[in-house]
């Protein structure tokens, strides 16, 4: 069988093989290589760099979640930060110290508090779904934006849960079957262990998402995105699938929020879960590529590494300061770049970084012909 297909990678003899997660040999090899590099990286790079990498990995989980609801199901959500917050608060409450003034249950086992954070966020997402059924497009966008404000207010005021505005609270340090992941030991450092944790979480969630979108549910999502009334007429249950979309997306956001602040050790409710965070996730999704899982991951890495890149600018541009009190400084350049990139990508490459990759790949595939 396989000998017959040699040299004809696009020939599929069954529906299953065409719809397979990795439908070409190149993809299999590429993913294997990528995973090998990903697993081996902690032995090659320093701990501070691993910290940034781990942040990008876990952010990617949140972006994939947003991609499911906005990219695949077409329900514009500016409320992603709220679900991140729900996840982070649940994790902090479950893992928190039971003896402190804040709500805490002392469950540090990551296999318990991580899914729990996702589930609580998923319930919150499912509660938003009735609004999504009644509203569409920009109306929905603004209602989800309202969710960020209402949720942010609750986070700020519910001080027993979040520690309150300007104070924040500590995140639990994850333990896996009693093995401390959040502290360095004689074998591995804290950064290495957290990096591997994030990598495993991302791989699991990315595969789950990829699998979801090629299933019956995923096809229903695409039908709703393309034209929800038409989808409804064809027998797609709009209420159910919009609710599934929001719940799954919020599950991803909850898990992302639960792990996002583990490396830093604490979160602050006022600055961590505001509209800027939501917009950042939207930007990652759009710059990476809407409607693709790999694009979401690319976008997360790109935006997380943007401050790292602008950090090099003062050496190149005279007059640019790294001091936040002076103008112009690198932080301002970073913000302007990020807004400008959003505009530039949407105008010139709406498929995002993934689209650039597709173009490169197609150029390579067809070389020396133009197409």
């Amino acid at each position, binding site marked *: 069988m396989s000998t017959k297909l040699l040299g004809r990678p696009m020939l599929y003899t069954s529906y299953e093989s065409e719809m397979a997660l990795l439908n070409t040999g190149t993809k299999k090899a590429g993913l294997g290589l990528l995973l090998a590099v990903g697993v081996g990286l902690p032995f090659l790079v320093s701990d501070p760099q691993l910290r940034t990498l781990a942040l990008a990995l876990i952010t990617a989980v949140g972006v994939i979640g947003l991609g499911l609801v906005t990219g695949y199901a077409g329900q514009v959500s500016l409320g992603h930060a709220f679900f991140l917050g729900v996840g982070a608060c649940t994790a902090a409450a479950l893992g928190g110290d039971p003896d402190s003034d804040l709500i805490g249950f002392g469950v540090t086992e990551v296999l318990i508090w991580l899914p729990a954070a996702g589930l609580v966020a998923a319930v919150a997402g499912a509660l938003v779904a009735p609004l999504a059924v009644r509203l569409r497009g*920009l109306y929905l966008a603004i209602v989800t934006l309202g969710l960020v404000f209402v949720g942010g207010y609750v986070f700020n005021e519910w001080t027993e849960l979040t520690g309150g505005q300007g104070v924040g609270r500590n995140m639990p340090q994850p333990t896996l079957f009693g093995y401390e992941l959040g502290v360095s030991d004689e074998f591995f450092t804290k950064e290495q262990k957290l990096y591997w944790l994030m990598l495993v979480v991302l791989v699991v969630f990315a595969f789950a998402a990829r699998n979801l979108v090629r299933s019956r549910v995923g096809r229903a999502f695409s039908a709703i995105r393309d034209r929800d009334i038409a989808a409804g007429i064809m027998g797609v249950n709009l209420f159910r699938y919009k609710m599934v979309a929001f719940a799954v997306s919020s599950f991803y956001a909850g898990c992302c929020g639960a792990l996002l602040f583990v490396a830093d050790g604490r979160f602050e409710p006022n600055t961590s879960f505001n509209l800027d965070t939501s917009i950042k996730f939207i930007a990652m999704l759009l710059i990476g590529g809407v409607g693709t899982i790999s694009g979401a991951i690319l976008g997360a890495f790109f935006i997380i590494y943007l401050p790292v890149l602008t950090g090099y600018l003062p050496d190149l541009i005279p007059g640019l300061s790294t001091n936040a009190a002076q103008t112009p400084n690198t932080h301002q350049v970073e913000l302007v770049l990020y807004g400008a990139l959003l505009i530039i990508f949407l105008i010139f490459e709406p498929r995002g970084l993934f689209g650039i990759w597709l173009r490169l790949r197609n150029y390579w595939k067809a070389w020396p012909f133009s197409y």
Partner: protein
Amino acid sequence: MTQAIEIISRGLGLGSIYALLALGFVIIYKATRVISFAQPAFMLAGAVLVSYLVRPVGFYAAVPLAALGIAGLALGAERVAVRPMLGRPAFTVAIITIGLDIVVRTIATAFIGVNLRRIDDPWGVKTIPVFGAVVQQRHLAMIATTAVLVAALFAFFRYTRMGLAMRAAAFDQEAAMSQGVSVGAVFATSWAIAGALATVGGVFVASGTANVESTMWIIALVALPVIILGGLDSLPGAVISGLGVGVVQEVTATYQQYFPDWLGRNASIISPYVLMMVILLVRPYGLFGTREVERV
């Protein structure tokens, strides 16, 4: 009674800020079918510009000049970032305006610098007695200015060629185009008007004891629930629900002390959003919006 007058004057003052910003949103929406999230940035940029102009030319000249300047800026932004997106999904264009918002807001914030910037409005915290109640002059000035601007806008849409063109384009873009209306000019004008209105709103926000601060944009965002409440495509809806939301917010703030503790200490901040969600569940197109006819 005196307390009622005080609450209502404060509420209408606040509401007139929302009304002006909401008008900008609705005018852009009617012309281009897009919600411009860049309005908060134009508001901030307008206030910053006024704070720079007020020393050399005085307050009353600075405001119209800044409004013109920001109108020009909005026009340019529309031409560069939004026009190329013509015909693309509304969501994509809305995200473009978010990108615009970030860029303009960051640059405007950079111009605020580290020192306090004031717009030196002539009203300050001066008050005036109205039927025994103490009313801030700046609130009366806001209400009066908004009334004048709304009347001027009404006249513009009703009696000028451009106003007619804009109404035609809002009704049916293709039909208007075939009758010789320059739809591009309509887009540009709508953005310019929205920019100018945002500037005046920004001046109101920065008046009194407030300074020009980067956090001002949060106030502009309240205009979003306002337009949803009023209906995205209704100009009277924007004004009425803007004023209404202002009053609701002031009433909530005044009676905060009687609320149960679990509602938190600042329930008035989120009252517009809660109001919006409740109304939307009942009326999905807002109070005055047109119900969209959906075709497959």
